[in-house]
């Protein structure tokens, strides 16, 4: 087996040359070639990570904007509802106030009218007594030909009126 022929100087010489070649290969790869690959690969990884980060930031921003819009809408609708409720309450209060004022005015007018009616009736009653007395006096004068006693006529009228009233 040529591999085990250690009397051949080439068997060991190839190992010495291998050490040199392997060392040189390691040096070139570690020093120049692999960093070049690492730069490209890591650069890509960084770029992807950066893009993902900015995408994530943009998404967070848009999410915040959407939340803001929703919040604003909710607030606006709540405000509008409050305004509507307010207006309704105000209108109701006004209407109540108006109707109360109208009632009061009507009651007042009614009272005044009643008072006026009472006065008119009293006045009418006073006038009736006089008319009755005069009429009774005139009737008696015509029938009997002599003027009656005014106090008797007065008493008779009073009695008749009290009877009529009761």
């Amino acid at each position, binding site marked *: *087996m040529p591999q*085990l022929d250690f009397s051949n100087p080439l068997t060991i010489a190839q190992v010495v*040359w291998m050490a040199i070649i392997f060392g040189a290969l390691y040096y070139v790869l570690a020093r120049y070639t692999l960093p070049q690959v690492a730069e490209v690969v890591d650069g890509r990884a960084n770029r992807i990570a950066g893009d993902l980060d900015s995408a994530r930031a943009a998404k967070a921003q848009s999410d915040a904007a959407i939340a803001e819009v929703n919040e604003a809408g909710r607030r606006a609708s709540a405000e509008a509802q409050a305004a509507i409720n307010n207006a309704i309450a105000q209108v109701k209060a006004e209407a109540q106030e108006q109707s109360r004022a109208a009632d009061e005015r009507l009651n007042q007018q009614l009272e005044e009218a009643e008072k006026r009616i009472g006065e008119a009736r009293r006045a009418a009653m006073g006038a009736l007594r006089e008319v009755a007395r005069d009429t009774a006096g005139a009737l008696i004068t015509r029938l009997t030909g002599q003027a009656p006693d005014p106090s008797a006529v007065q008493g008779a009228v009073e009695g008749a009126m009290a009877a009529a009233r009761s």
Partner: protein
Amino acid sequence: MAAEGKMDALGQFELHTALGGLGRSVNFTNSNLMMLLGGGLIIGLLYYGMKPRAVVPGRLQSLAEISYSGLLSMTEGSIGPEGRRFFPFIFTLFFFVLMGNMLGLLPYSFTYTSHIAVTFGLALLVIVVVTAVALRIHGMHFFSYFFPEGAPKLLAPLIIPIEVISYLSRPVSLSIRLFANMVAGHVMFEVFATFIVLLGGAGVLGASIGILPLVLNVVLVGFELLVAALQAYVFAILTCIYLHDAVHLH
């Protein structure tokens, strides 16, 4: 060789000086020439592959990046985050072995990984590096590696020699595994190729039977490609495991 009427399946492993008179004067062998070629190929692949520095890589750049990222994840996966320091070493080792195995499959080439001197030299390098790393990181505490914590003291006379022998046998198993795989594959090629020639010279019947070793050799090429990649991977991953032990001491 068979063509010369001499059936020598081992002739393919014979060393010669290469590069003419210059090589003869410094004992530069055909195996070293293949090493140079392999090293040149991997540097060329990385250099020309990464030249476009494209964000979306082309074919050659993908190949270069896959070999970089694949080995990096293997290194970091088995050693840990500290493994990045050793990555150039693992990378060089893997591609040095892979190129030796792969280039050896080409006709008229030479398989330098089929030489025990070469594989043992590489394994020795690995074990020296691993031991140096362990001593550098852990100092004298490294020697506690040979006596696992928690083992009964009574068993120390038994455990320590076993651990020391297993540690020292690492380079032996590492180098013989690669060497034996490569030699076996190439001897099989040559033996079956010899059958083809012998049967081919034995009339019509012999020639028709001679198809069989030919088919077998075609299948063997595929198999040997697998072995070539696998053995390079095994060499690299075992180095990673040894480095893991050196960094973490179990």
